[in-house]
């Protein structure tokens, strides 16, 4: 076995590393698929808002003894509804409304958390605990992530048309409002799926970077999706194994590896632009 192979394989001798890697792959891929749509729609920061807003839902579900995923999903959706309502009915700009709503909900979650006697560690909700996921957590993640990916891929043409030209989409009879609402729901579901592994703060990074990398490297949507998924998969593997050797947190490692890919895509993009400029 070469040194590189040993470096890659050694961590996987542990069962918790195998589970962690599976969780990282699942979450990475579902986030990557969604990130392509978010980038094209200009909704990158919606992911930021919804993921923070999920916190009070989780805490409340804990108090009431309901499944955490249900609480998180409801809170995430209420956040996007509240943003829409406040924007329609006041003269405050959309980005400001977004900031006010998600920070307010996150703060509410923090305050409620103080009053909860809980076995859940706050930092695990915020940053996930990739290497501590159990097989049942993994199953829960898969049950949410796999159908989410399937729906997004099946409806990708419709989502794409709505993102590029809503008027045209409406003209050919697509239910634009429902597709937008559906995308928000898929966003909330993805965040719920990512909860156990990467937590609600770092999921934002995984919801932006792969799509941005795809956008920089290719001009075709299917290719963009493929690039995003491949980058997310490779980053999840390298990041998880790197975190074992560095003895650092897994989520941040994956995000940093994605950032390295982003820099590479950026360099590629700039070189292409330079070449195009000289050719003309």
């Amino acid at each position, binding site marked *: 076995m070469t040194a590189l192979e040993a470096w890659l394989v050694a961590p996987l001798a542990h069962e918790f590393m195998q589970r962690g890697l599976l969780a990282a792959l699942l979450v990475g891929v579902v986030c990557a698929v969604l990130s392509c749509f978010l980038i094209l729609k200009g909704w990158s920061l919606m992911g930021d808002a919804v993921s*923070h807003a999920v916190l009070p839902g989780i805490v409340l579900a804990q108090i009431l003894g309901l499944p955490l995923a249900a609480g998180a999903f409801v809170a995430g959706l209420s956040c996007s509804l509240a943003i829409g309502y406040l924007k329609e009915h006041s003269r405050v*700009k959309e980005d*400001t409304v977004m900031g006010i709503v998600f920070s*307010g909900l996150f703060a509410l979650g923090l*305050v409620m958390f103080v009053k909860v006697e809980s076995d859940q560690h706050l930092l695990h909700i915020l940053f996930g605990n990739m290497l501590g996921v159990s097989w049942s957590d993994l199953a829960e993640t898969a049950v949410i992530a796999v159908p989410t990916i399937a729906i997004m891929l099946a409806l990708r043409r419709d989502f794409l048309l709505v993102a590029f030209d809503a008027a045209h989409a409406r003209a050919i009879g697509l239910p634009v409002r429902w597709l937008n609402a559906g995308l928000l729901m898929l966003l909330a579901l993805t965040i719920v799926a990512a909860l156990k592994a990467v937590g609600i703060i770092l999921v934002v990074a995984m919801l*932006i970077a792969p799509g941005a990398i795809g*956008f920089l490297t290719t001009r075709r949507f299917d290719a963009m999706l493929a690039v995003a998924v491949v980058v997310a998969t490779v980053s999840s593997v390298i990041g998880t194994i790197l975190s074992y050797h560095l003895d650092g947190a897994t989520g941040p490692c994956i995000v940093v590896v994605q950032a390295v890919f982003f820099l590479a895509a950026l360099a590629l993009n*700039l070189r292409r632009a330079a070449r195009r400029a000289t050719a003309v």
Partner: protein
Amino acid sequence: MIELLLEPFGYQYMVRAIWVSALVGGVCAFLSCFLMLKGWSLMGDALAHAIVPGVALAYLLKVPYAAGAFFSGLLAALAMALVRLRTQLREDAVIGVVFTTFFAVGLLIVSINPTSVNVQSIVLGNILGIADEDVVQVAGIAIVSLAVLLLRWRDLMLVFFDENQARAVGLSPTRLKILFFVLLSACTVAALQTVGAVLVIAMVITPGATAYLLCDRFGRLIAIAVALGVVTSAAGAYASYFLDGSTGGLIVVFQTLLFLAAFVFAPKHGRLAAARAARSVSETRP
């Protein structure tokens, strides 16, 4: 009862937390008036996350945390400007990629060296347990920023509303914008200690947005926003004594509740006023 209410003032750390929070809340609220009118709200959020690696490294190397924060904030701002100029990515995606990357680097540094600084106090703030030398830095930053703002707010206002006019009267918009971003990063650094990286965004937009629903003149807007920022921050710090923690959460919850109250009850721009206006229109036109 009154004894119980006065109890927090008997502890030096509580008194200190209250006045430091109020000071920081006031300066951030001052800035919020500019930020939310210009549509730059998310810059505040991005900066707050982007300074985390600087803070982590500063604690690790035992240099003043403000210096590290400032340096990494600057680096992030440069990175955002560069990526935006050279690619076709949308602005929000550029901001998102850069700040989440910086934040992840910060978390990675902290996770590799867990002893130098506590993750929780960076992300969620820890004003009740703030160290003496950090108080000096926070108060210094806040007082200097406040002084600069008091001296230059009219110039900034002119630049933000009408750049041509500003240029015509001999101001330099570029220089003033840079000044504004320096002030904003300084205040994010200060606010990081009180409410933590995640909630800084509320400190630098919510008071301004609330005031914006309450009045139409810029001078008054600033006065109301600063008053709201000071009162909510002091009240949040005070109330956290009874809740055993989560100062940042309480401050932001108070700010959000006031925003919602203004959204419903504001005399001219509130929902009730709008409903009243709609009713009187339909009555005059049967």
